[in-house]
């Protein structure tokens, strides 16, 4: 039997199981912590830095998605400082690539767009980067638009952990990091891709989409991808 622990989230005492992360406990108790790279059913990687929280006694912020709970942990999720950092993080995500919602298939169903709205990002205070990026249309059914990719790596983990094909990886470092299929082979020529499309469904933005949809038309079945893991856990 898993050990039970008690933690505090924003002052409220909450029962949790050892081994759970702060984010899992918060979500299970309707406490809001924003996140972009986290997706239920996938391993957590702490890539997007939106779920940073304050833990008392710790002199730095910790990502809620990768920090396990322990007895007596006290977490603050929405201090003015955190709110300000989240806004900055969202703005930096928006300037890094070319997120033009007006021409995006995922507009209205995009997690980045929704987070920006929720956090009152009405404009971006930093200069835009305007990188020249490619769009991979080589797959017969799906398209990958690097302009809209936030490098959350949900697709990488979905393909490796759920489909078991591991077509995707992140290549390069820092600002030059890029999502690649099969060691830089175009998606359409990737021999390990099963064309299952779960990466597309897991993608939080319009970076991966099914072909044939227009602006605002691409909705995603993220819960269906998460459900695969929970169904397998019962086996």
């Amino acid at each position, binding site marked *: 039997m898993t050990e039970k622990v008690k933690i505090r989230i924003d002052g409220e005492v909450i029962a949790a199981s050892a081994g759970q992360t702060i984010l899992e406990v918060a979500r299970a108790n309707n406490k809001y912590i924003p996140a972009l790279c986290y997706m239920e059913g996938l391993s957590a990687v702490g890539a997007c830095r939106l779920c940073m929280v304050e833990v008392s006694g710790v002199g730095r912020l910790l990502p809620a998605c990768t920090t396990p709970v322990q007895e007596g942990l006290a977490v603050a999720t929405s201090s003015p400082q955190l709110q300000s950092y989240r806004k900055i993080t969202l703005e930096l995500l*928006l300037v890094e690539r*070319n*997120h*033009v*919602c*007006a*021409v*995006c298939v995922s*507009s*209205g169903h995009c997690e980045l*767009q*929704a987070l*920006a*709205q*929720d*956090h*009152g990002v*009405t*404009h*971006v205070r930093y*200069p*835009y980067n*305007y*990188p*020249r*990026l490619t769009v991979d249309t080589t797959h017969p059914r799906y398209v990958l638009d690097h302009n809209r990719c936030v490098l959350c790596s949900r697709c990488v983990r979905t393909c490796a952990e759920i489909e078991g094909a591991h077509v995707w990886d992140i290549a390069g470092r820092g600002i030059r990091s890029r999502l690649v299929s099969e060691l830089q082979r175009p998606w359409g020529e990737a021999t390990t891709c099963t064309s299952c499309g779960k990466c597309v469904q897991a993608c939080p933005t319009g970076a991966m989409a099914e072909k044939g949809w227009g602006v*605002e038309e691409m909705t995603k079945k993220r819960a269906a991808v998460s459900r695969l893991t929970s169904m397998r856990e019962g086996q």
Partner: protein
Amino acid sequence: MDKLKIGTCWLDGCSGCHMSLLDIDEGIVAVLNKADIVFGPLVDAQEWPDGVDVALIEGAVSNQDDLKLAQTARAHSKVVVALGDCAVTGNVPSLRNGIPVRKLLERVYVEGATVRPGVPTDGVPTLLKQAEPLHSAIEVDVYVPGCPPKPNSILLVLNELLEGREPDVGSKLRFG
């Protein structure tokens, strides 16, 4: 009391934000009871007048004329509103920003032309290096994202500003 003055202008955009402004329907009556529209594509004035209370600016800042008009509007207006995604983020006009201007013009007007190839120079303003959001060129007081912003959002912002209040658009509006 004298009526307030609204000025509008259309930089590098599609006029969709102005269409959305017209789409406030009968809301325009309440607006015009409090203010006159003294400059913009909807009226005849040739020069941006002095003493404008609210400036609604649509479009990104893409060429020398855009920059000049934005600066004039700023200098002669109390409150400047960045109206719509092009003014707020650069949006569609900024899609050209990864391409050097010379290459871009040659691609369109030389390689892409079937008759009289050549980059036009007479009577057209010089393009800036990049199409930028309005706040990279002038100080902006209120941001109204949306492509276009919904008529109700524009009406809300206008009514608040004409009443002398700061509109709280916060989480009500989204990009796109």
